């Protein structure tokens, strides 16, 4: 058991928390503007895939990172057009984006590399010590997002769009523009989280490699009470559960079955959401439009 609490465990937790932070911050901005985003999962997957494909095409890992983020933003644009302009059901649209992401990446993996399971190996992003440079970036983004949301005019207007869309419109806020920007930012951040999985932590893409992290990030947003620091805390909680599980697997004599430990984040989320749902509720205008048609 002594070999359990090591520096290794800490870096492991930081590594698995990083993609959750990126996606959760994206989801947070999106939901604060009043748009439900269950497409985070698919947007992460698109980011993960195109970061590898972009690196493969250009031979430059930073170009790959940008391509991954840009493609995730295109996915987010679909979500925005359907949810905001077409006033579609935001959960239905998110489901469609997730399915398209799964199908498109699986289709393209075969078309590009001819293999069904995953991509060839490409370069990965530079590392700081044993961790990708994106790890500190994720943690540094938390105060930045908190500052923008709570201390700038644009951030407060964004919140107004989510809290009370009708009032925001009466106050002369271009709610459509703010919501589009918010959904696109969520694409950018989720794409970054996905790219971290493929070219940050590893150097290849495998099918469905996000494996529910987008959904976990969304749960972190809710569990964290729609605040950046809360989301960070929740993401760390999920990251710790996963990190402890991986570490436990490689520690002989660890008392809890690792298969059960993997289930921890889901149980924690279920309990937490059930307990806190009455004290913490999301933006009042979440999923609604400024005017009824």
């Amino acid at each position, binding site marked *: 058991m002594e070999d359990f609490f090591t520096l290794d465990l800490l870096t492991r937790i930081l590594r698995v928390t990083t993609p959750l932070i990126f996606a959760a911050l994206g989801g947070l901005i999106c939901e604060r503007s009043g748009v439900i985003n269950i497409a985070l999962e698919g947007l992460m997957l698109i980011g993960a895939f195109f970061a590898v494909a972009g690196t493969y095409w250009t031979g430059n890992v930073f170009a790959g990172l940008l391509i991954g983020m840009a493609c995730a933003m295109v996915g987010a644009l679909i979500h925005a057009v359907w949810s905001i302009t077409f006033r579609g059901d935001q959960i*239905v649209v998110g*489901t469609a984006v997730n399915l398209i*992401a799964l199908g498109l990446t699986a289709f393209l993996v075969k078309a590009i590399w001819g293999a069904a399971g995953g991509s060839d190996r490409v370069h990965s992003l530079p590392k700081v010590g044993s961790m990708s440079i994106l790890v500190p970036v994720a943690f540094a983004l938390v105060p930045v997002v908190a500052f923008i949301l709570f201390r700038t005019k644009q951030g407060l207007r964004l919140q107004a769009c989510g809290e009370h869309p009708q009032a925001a419109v009466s106050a002369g806020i271009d709610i459509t523009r703010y919501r589009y920007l918010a959904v696109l930012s969520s694409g950018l951040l989720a794409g970054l989280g996905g790219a971290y999985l493929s070219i940050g932590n590893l150097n290849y893409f495998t099918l469905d490699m996000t494996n529910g992290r987008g959904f976990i990030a969304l749960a972190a947003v809710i569990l964290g009470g729609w605040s950046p620091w809360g989301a960070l805390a929740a993401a760390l909680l999920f990251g710790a559960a996963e990190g402890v599980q991986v570490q436990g697997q490689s520690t002989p004599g660890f008392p809890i079955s690792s298969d059960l430990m993997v*289930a921890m984040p889901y149980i924690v989320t*279920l309990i937490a959401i059930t307990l806190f749902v009455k004290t913490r509720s999301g933006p009042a205008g979440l999923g609604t439009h400024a005017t009824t048609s």
Partner: protein
Amino acid sequence: MNRLQIKSSTLLSIGGSVAAVAVALLLGALVMSASGASPVEAYQALWDGAFVGRRSIAETLVYSAPLILGGLAFALSSRAGLFNIGIEGQLITGGFVAGLVGAWDLGLPGSVYVPLALASGALGGMVWGFIPGFLKAKTGAHEVITTIMLNYLAMRGITYLVLRRDDVLPVDPSFIATQKVVDAAKLPILLDRTRLHLGIIIAIVAALVLWYVLFHTRFGYNVRAVGLSKGASAYGGIKWGATVTIAMALAGGLAGLAGAGESLGLHGRHWATAPGYGFTAIAVGLVGRNHPLGVIFSGILFGALNAGGPSMQSADVSKEIVQLIQGFIILAIAALEVVNRLPAIRSRLARRSAAQKAGA
């Protein structure tokens, strides 16, 4: 008046679904062309693989059975106003429980064993559907998050049980599955030398029963009422909490039945993998307009896409395109809602310009 006359709104919904599928197939063709394949050849292969010949039709129906039941599960929850993204978890829980009961070898005759195994699968799914329904009713916990968590919990939990608990359960860790279902618990095969089993009949009967329940019973009326308006139904004396909880449990039961059919009819054991039918079921429900009879047709459509998908390989198109087309179908359906709302949007614009004129 002619009783067979179909309401124009029904025709509009059917037309909308057909148009959405057509648009999605067109978009799929664009993707195929972009990747250098011939869409005409690919769709020809898809059609042949799904409908030409006895074996192809049987395969289409084999794939349709769980999709129809899953689509019914989605339709029932939607009618009660809940978005059930947890069909996947409810389905594999049902499949696992049915697989266990079928593998235990209780020494029963088939006439008792098959219904018992099916019912236990449905019960497993029911429990997995009851939890989010109950949490929603009691605490307001959003079903989208709780059902997603329950999906992963079911997957991880079943994997743990089949890998580690072969001391008490009839599971086979080397296969990551339950042990083989005994012959007496297997669903009968309907057509010689094919995999077509009783599941498709169960699915169609379930659709007819659900149609009756939704539109001709008090419970069905309550479900539709709470789905349309929580407030108005409460005013009318309908208990919202009890209704959504029961509706979610029954939806879980339908999904569990889908999983049971896969274990007892198709695979002869429950494999601890996620088939992904839970998400396709959402598309099935949406295309079928959450109407049980519509779901039969859309279930067969998606069954055909899945059964014929691998045949597209002959035209150099990988079967993953089917998943992409499913996503396109949902987007197209969502976009069509805009077209349906056009009259309302037009009248709003007219009011606005009239108001502006009056102001000037």
